[in-house]
């Protein structure tokens, strides 16, 4: 009995440590229970005394792509079991292997009950597995235009919103000096003269071109229509105004900074954290990287990429929670109960903001303790100062397989101009869209 108590104590302590900021409410419930029955379901009903005794559901499995939240998610599943008595088995997957593994597991008839899909081509690919969530209570509070939809039905709940733009060192750059092509170029030249790297990209496909090229697409009157026309070969990037200016930005970046092909994401953020680089094109997720450097000694912020007078950050949804429509009805019921708990219970909401570190895309979740980059994104979202993630509408695989190689060529070939690069991009696009 002593061992049981001890073990239970450790579990409770672990749960509390994992709970961090949100420990206020659940404290009493758990403690008083340690002395009583060690059964998990009993402890659950005690802490959630307001609601009726929790229903017993089938055990479900959960498979998702974001490795960074794997551990807090496991801890959360443990809490879910404590509070409701129901079980969620969290599977593991390494970053970019996720989609392949998901495909294999579905092929093997071993699909997970709850899983994640990226907005765009990936969601389209797995469309036949997405359960209609339109009537689930928790989808009502998804922020406008953020829900994952298929054929007019809500099929996925966003992880959170994410945004990118120019992450800058406030002691080196003033946003006023980065407001258009001219001032941007002048700032880069000035920084270069001071021995600083003005603006840095890095060699990973999305950080090299995928995110950057979003801007000229997003600034089109109707990005989706523009992409459709591009796929059909009815328009060319080289003939479009925003892209022409984009090419000039690229020329300036190439002329005044280190070659991004030499720079990995790790080094990019290292150079930024140590003050060698003044600006990087990155998103709020990069804060996790900066945190590892301790006190930076300067303030950071995020500002819009000033293409064609743009004043907005690129904000969108990377990943969504979905329920496997091919699972058994009992499992679907259990899955919807879990998601409902995740998005409406205090424990769940707290985990989303404080453990997963997501910027909530649900209006019923408060976020008050965000890091500076997430805060910038959150505020832009609330005030509507955002443009869409147009690259989610691109043909499947095009960024990694076609656009990135073209960009590599551009940055490695000293003589290639931005204009020639646009032609390369047009050619690459035509080939990929076939």
């Amino acid at each position, binding site marked *: 009995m002593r061992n049981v108590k001890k073990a239970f104590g450790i579990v409770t302590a672990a749960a509390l440590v994992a709970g961090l900021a949100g420990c206020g409410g659940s404290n009493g419930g758990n403690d008083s229970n340690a002395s009583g029955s060690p059964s998990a379901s009993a402890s659950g009903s005690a802490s959630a005394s307001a609601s009726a005794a929790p229903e017993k559901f089938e055990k479900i499995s959960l498979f998702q792509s974001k490795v960074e939240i794997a551990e807090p998610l496991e801890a959360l599943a443990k809490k879910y079991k404590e509070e409701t008595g129901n079980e969620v088995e969290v*599977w593991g997957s390494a970053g970019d292997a996720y989609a392949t593994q998901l495909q294999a597991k579905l092929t*093997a008839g071993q699909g997970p009950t709850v899983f994640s899909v990226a907005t765009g081509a990936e969601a389209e690919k797995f469309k036949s597995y997405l359960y209609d969530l339109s009537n689930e209570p928790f989808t009502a509070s998804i922020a406008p235009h953020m829900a994952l939809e298929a054929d007019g039905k809500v099929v996925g709940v966003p992880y959170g919103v994410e945004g990118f733009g120019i992450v800058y060192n406030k002691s080196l750059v003033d946003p006023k000096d980065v407001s258009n092509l001219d001032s941007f170029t002048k700032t880069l030249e000035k920084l270069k003269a001071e021995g600083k790297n003005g603006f840095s990209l890095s060699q990973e496909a999305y950080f090299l071109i995928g995110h950057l090229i979003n801007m000229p697409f997003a600034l089109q009157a109707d990005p989706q229509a523009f992409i459709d026309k591009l796929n059909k070969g009815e328009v060319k990037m080289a003939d479009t105004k925003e892209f022409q200016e984009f090419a000039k930005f690229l020329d300036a970046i190439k002329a005044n900074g280190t070659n991004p092909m030499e720079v990995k994401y790790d080094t990019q953020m290292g150079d930024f954290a140590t003050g060698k680089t003044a600006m990087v094109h990155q998103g709020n997720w990069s804060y996790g990287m900066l945190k590892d450097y301790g006190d930076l000694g300067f303030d950071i912020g995020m500002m819009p990429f000033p293409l064609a007078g743009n004043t907005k950050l690129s904000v969108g949804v990377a990943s969504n929670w979905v329920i496997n429509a091919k699972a058994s009805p009992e499992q679907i019921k259990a899955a919807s109960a879990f998601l409902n708990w995740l998005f409406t219970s205090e424990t769940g909401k707290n985990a989303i903001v404080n453990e997963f570190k997501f910027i909530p895309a649900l209006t019923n979740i408060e976020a008050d303790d965000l890091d500076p980059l997430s805060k910038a994104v959150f505020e832009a979202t609330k005030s509507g100062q955002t443009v869409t993630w147009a690259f989610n509408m691109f043909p499947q695989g095009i960024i990694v397989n076609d656009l990135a190689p073209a960009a590599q060529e551009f940055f490695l070939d000293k003589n290639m101009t931005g204009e020639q690069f646009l032609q390369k991009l047009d050619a690459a696009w035509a080939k990929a869209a076939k």
Partner: protein
Amino acid sequence: MRTTSKWLLELLLVLLALCFLSPVYLMVVNSFKNRAELYQNALALPSSLSFQYYSKAMEKMNYWTAFGNSVFVTVVSVVIVVLLASMTAWMLVRTDNKLSKIIFMVLVSTMLIPFQTLMMPLMQVMDWIRTNLHLPMLNTHGGLIYMNVGFHASMAVFLYHGFIKSVPVALEEAATLDGCSKFGVFWRIVFPMLTTITITIAILDVIAIWNDYLLPSLTLSDKGLRTIPLSTFYFFGEFTIVWNLAMAGLTLTIIPVVIFYFFAQKYIVKGIAAGAVK
């Protein structure tokens, strides 16, 4: 004169070995650094030798459970591969007809198929076995072992096939005349003479299976079943790698196989086949 050249050779060997070891050096030193230190200089020695990342990696990986799973899967797979492959290879060498030639060629040529093209159909076949024969092929150690045996069979047969030739047929014939069955001939006479190549195969397969990530990642889902390479997934994000934990985890992954190899290689010794001829 002879001793000088021998010393030179020794020196060369040591230098070469150090050269070979440099990437391993990188792996070990970077398991002691935090991100800022790694960024400053990936090649330098760490500023402090604290094993915090190792204990953290062990805890996150649930190391000992994963270790037990890995040992079980690896040992059983390799034992079955060795037993079945040696028997098959011996029969194929000693039976000189079209069928055995075809079987051999099929086994060998399939080693050229990239695994990436097999994985989806393989999952379908396993799903079919599961639903129609009710054998739990997926999300079980047994199923993984079965697939390991299938994938490593051809190489083992290939290796045995090459080395069985050094076993004199005369010995087998003598034993047959003494009234040994085929089974007896194989296990009493032939198999013991194949020790060197058996150990070699065991070493190669142990390493391949121990380190394998792809196949287990497709077949094992439950946390409690994870092998060691699977449990390092926490350190590999989509864009970032938690270097110190990843390197510590990797070092922890390979230490058991280094030890295994160090002891196993001693059994690759001279004279087993040679001695028997006399």
